[in-house]
């Protein structure tokens, strides 16, 4: 399935509907990306006001989810889409759930950042968490790009990148335990930092989910809970089929 294929319906309204709902998902993605950026900035700058603003604005993300959900239901009910269109709608319904969760995690990071702004900062200035945040931000960005381009190969790359994020989370977690044992006074701060790393790791997982929906949308294969190797094999097969067909 290619981006251009969306424009091949006899009914122009149907084309426009599909195109519109797809654009809305990406607009929602943009909003979520910004929320995430601001939450991380709140941590970097120690800006509690910004962190709380993220919490306040989460309602916008939720509203968008509801409206896209309604639009999808309407398309399902009135147009009864099939094949690629049906996959698109299903993938969108799942994607917005994960996007909304990313928004929730960003909200969590914002609140934690606001709290951490009030306490003494460690000498590293949360370097590990910021590093992890950079990776995750990059993942989310590439995920949405892959969604926009219906690019299963790029989606696969993001799925692979999730392992690095998991490893980084693991190391922050272990480091935190060491800190807490060395100096119990840091416990509350380290706990907050760990929660933040946890939220970031979850965002990575949601991005990975969305990438799996992208692969599903493009090749029509459900790849959840499969090993990375078999996912890769499927994507390669699918791409080859597509190239042979083109």
């Amino acid at each position, binding site marked *: 399935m290619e*981006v*251009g294929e969306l424009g091949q319906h006899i009914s122009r309204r149907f084309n426009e509907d599909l195109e519109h709902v*797809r*654009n809305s998902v*990406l*607009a929602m*993605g*943009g*909003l979520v*990306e*910004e929320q995430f*950026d601001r939450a991380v900035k709140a941590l970097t700058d120690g800006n509690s006001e910004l962190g709380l*603003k993220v919490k306040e604005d989460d309602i916008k993300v939720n509203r968008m989810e509801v409206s896209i959900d309604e639009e999808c239901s309407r398309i399902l009910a009135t147009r009864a889409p099939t094949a690629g269109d049906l996959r698109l709608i299903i993938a969108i319904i799942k994607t917005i759930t994960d996007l909304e969760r990313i928004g929730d995690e960003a909200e969590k990071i914002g609140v934690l950042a606001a709290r951490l702004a009030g306490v003494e900062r460690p000498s590293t200035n949360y370097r590990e968490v910021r590093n992890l945040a*950079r990776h995750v931000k990059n993942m989310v*960005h590439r995920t*949405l*790009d892959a969604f*926009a*381009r219906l*690019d299963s190969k790029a989606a696969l790359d993001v799925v692979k990148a999730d392992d690095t994020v998991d490893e980084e989370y693991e190391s922050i977690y272990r480091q935190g335990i060491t800190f807490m044992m060395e100096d119990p006074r840091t416990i509350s701060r380290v706990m907050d930092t760990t929660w933040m790393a946890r939220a970031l790791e979850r965002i990575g997982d949601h991005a990975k989910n969305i990438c799996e929906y992208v692969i599903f949308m493009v090749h029509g294969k459900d790849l959840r809970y499969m090993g990375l190797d078999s996912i890769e094999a499927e994507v390669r097969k699918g791409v080859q089929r597509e190239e042979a067909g083109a």
Partner: protein
Amino acid sequence: MRNHWASHLLALAGWLLGALLLGLIAGGPAWWLAGALAAYVAYMLRNVYLLDRVISGAPGLRTFGTRGLWPELVAGIDKIRAKSRNRKLRYHRLLREVSESTGALSDAGIILNPEKEILWFNTAATRLLGLDPARDIGNRIDNFIRHPDFVQYLEDPAGRSITIPSPTAELGFLLVQLIPYGREHQLAIVRDVTHERHLERTRRDFVANASHELRSPLTVISGYLDALAEADDPPESWREPIREMLRQANRMTQILRDLIELTRLESETSKAKYDFVDVADMLRGIVRELEARAERPKLTLRIESDAALLGSESELHSIFYNVIHNAVRFTPPTGSVDVSWGTDDAGGVFTVRDTGIGIPAELIPRITERFYRVDPGRSRATGGTGLGLAIVKHALQRHNGTLTIQSHEGQGSTFACHFSPARLVYRGGASKAAYNRPAPNVKSG
């Protein structure tokens, strides 16, 4: 008729005439004539066939010999072909020039159709925005630049430009401007302003830090000067110098406070908060404070509306205070200053009209610049910091407001601050429902 046509027709006539003559001699001239015509048709058919091959690419002139109708036709075709080849080459070269020069631009250029779909972009767009030339043509641009501010801007550009964080470079910033052209097409120009933003930020940080650092030593100096001014023991000759030092130290403190305030206003990107502010009450307080001064012009306050504002209390106070204080400073004690608060169709209006020295028309646009003084000697004598109107301008911007200044030199000036209806709250009347902060004295500060 051209030469080769004439000779061809002549040859045809000769051929037919020859056949007719032979027919007359040998008998059956009709058969002879028909035979000759058939031979002519066959000859023509062969040549048309060859011509067809020439058109589709086989070398032509040799098959047809060098003279006569057919070689001329082939030569004509070749000429047209060469011409179009040249033209194509020229366009190709031009196109390459254009694409090379747009590729060399450091700014990204993207052409959008009315549906906001990407029609073309240069190589800088790939570098700055991460667009993929192989796949992204025909997709909507906000599928790739997804920042909410940009999405909103795309809906309604209105001749402005916006700055968004770069989607590709961390900590990068891009300035985007949409320029409409042709039939509803748009050209998006994107420039990397990371460096400018960085410089601007460095400047702001420097001013803020310097002001903060200067404040603490100054507090110590003022403290001792205060004590000295109160003390009885200093010799009489020192008394006046100490008072003067104290005055100047206080002025420096005021300047630093204004600088810090201005830097804060500049660096806040969001709009001011929406706290309930009772304008009439605040204005009464300011006027009362200024009335306590000796040597001042006549002050009158007119409250024409009981509308209140939603905004930041401290910032609104600085707006009102600075504008009124400014008018009082530049108006002689014999003159008058009229302060009024009211509403019109466009929202709330705060006006200060004075009969002071006025401002020359050409300097009006400059007086909101920091440290700009119309008459340096006089302004310093009246004890201003030179930052008042700059603060007013920035604080107003944060309250969706605008400042207009009218002035006649020697006759006085009128400063008007306009506030948008979104910031207004009417007590009583239809829009009471919109007023959801019932306790005016519960202010978060």
